[in-house]
């Protein structure tokens, strides 16, 4: 019988969405548990490292968003063809995922103080320019960051890119190779289906 996966995260995209995208792309079923922020305090001490997301598999629990995503990518064959390809995919993930995965939704939905918002926006703008620049320089040109088929790094990138496009629409036009990756992911039939879901309760 196939392993049963249970992913627990907040009802936002941020650090949990890459794993959800990987499951979706691979067509693998899992339990997608979404917590409101109010539900979190009593659950916190029961988690391995006091944070989310966490993944439960056959009674064992894994923490750390990218360790989880990487594990699921490996389980579903979306991590890369060989060690070198896997490393190149890892490099893109490390470059693009943190800290934007949390900073952009914080900016879009969870910062109310005007000055804080201004400061955060400046920081986010600088990070976006820096990171998209590096990724564009190193990206493949056939609609995939690495190699010639969908890998988890494309999905991790898509998660950030969709936040960037929500924040400043049209940004990707300045990064043609990355724009192609974004479009390729969006056009993937399983991802397209996943993207039809309504947004979570916080809208990010």
């Amino acid at each position, binding site marked *: 019988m196939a392993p049963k996966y249970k992913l627990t995260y907040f009802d936002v995209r941020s650090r949990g969405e890459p794993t959800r995208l990987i499951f979706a792309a691979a067509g693998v079923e899992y339990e997608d548990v979404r917590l409101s922020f109010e539900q979190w305090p009593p659950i916190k001490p029961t988690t391995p490292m006091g944070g989310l997301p966490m993944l439960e598999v056959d009674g064992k629990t894994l*923490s750390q968003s990218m360790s989880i995503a990487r594990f699921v990518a490996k389980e579903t064959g979306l991590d890369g063809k060989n060690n070198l390809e896997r490393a190149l995919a890892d490099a893109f993930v490390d470059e693009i995922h943190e800290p934007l995965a949390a900073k952009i939704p914080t900016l879009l939905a969870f910062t109310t103080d005007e000055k804080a918002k201004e400061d955060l926006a400046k920081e986010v703008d600088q990070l976006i320019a820096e990171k998209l620049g590096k990724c564009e320089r190193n990206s493949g040109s056939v609609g995939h960051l690495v190699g010639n088929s969908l890998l988890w790094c494309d999905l991790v990138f898509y998660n950030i890119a969709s936040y960037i496009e929500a924040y400043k629409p049209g940004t990707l036009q300045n990064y043609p190779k990355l724009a192609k990756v974004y479009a390729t992911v969006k056009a993937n039939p399983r991802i397209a289906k996943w993207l039809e879901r309504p947004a979570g309760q916080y809208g990010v």
Partner: protein
Amino acid sequence: MAPKYKFTYFKASVGRGELVRLIFAAAGVEFEDVRLEREEWRLLKETSPMGQLPMLEVGGQVICQSGAIFRYAAKETGLSGAAGWEEAQVDMFVSGMEDLTMKMYGVYFERDEAKKEEKKTALATFVPNFLRNYEKLCGSDGHLVGTSLTYADLAFFNGMDDILKKQPDALEKYPRLAKVVESVKANKGVATYIAERPETLL
């Protein structure tokens, strides 16, 4: 014959480069260990793939991002844990160490005195919780995961290095973790490497 791997980083001993060097040392795998002064890097930076260090060159390809590099190096040298769940757990422990190291750097590099004090206080609360979690999850025979050395053990050792220098009894309440540090120190490759590595400021 030239070593298969060429690793380039700053001269600094701790930080993101050191774990890669420890992995190759522990596995007894030769590598070209290029250590640059800041000035030398300034000249190379523009033509490098991601404009940052560390980087690992192998078979004409370049890998950047310390995480990608040490994961790759660990896989190539058999120190990444058994494929599947064990490998994921190793990954998890190493990622968690990043949280600790980032907070430590945060204190070290903070110029503003008031902010530095704040960060120091935050770190002082963070560390015992962090160690408590790790002790709970740690294996009991001198390895965080499984029954032989993985790079999770090396990452923990590397991350704790600074803390232990200032507070040799920092792991007193955490016997499993203390055992991990001992296991790493007992590894021949690591012991030799540490004895011979240059002392630096950082």
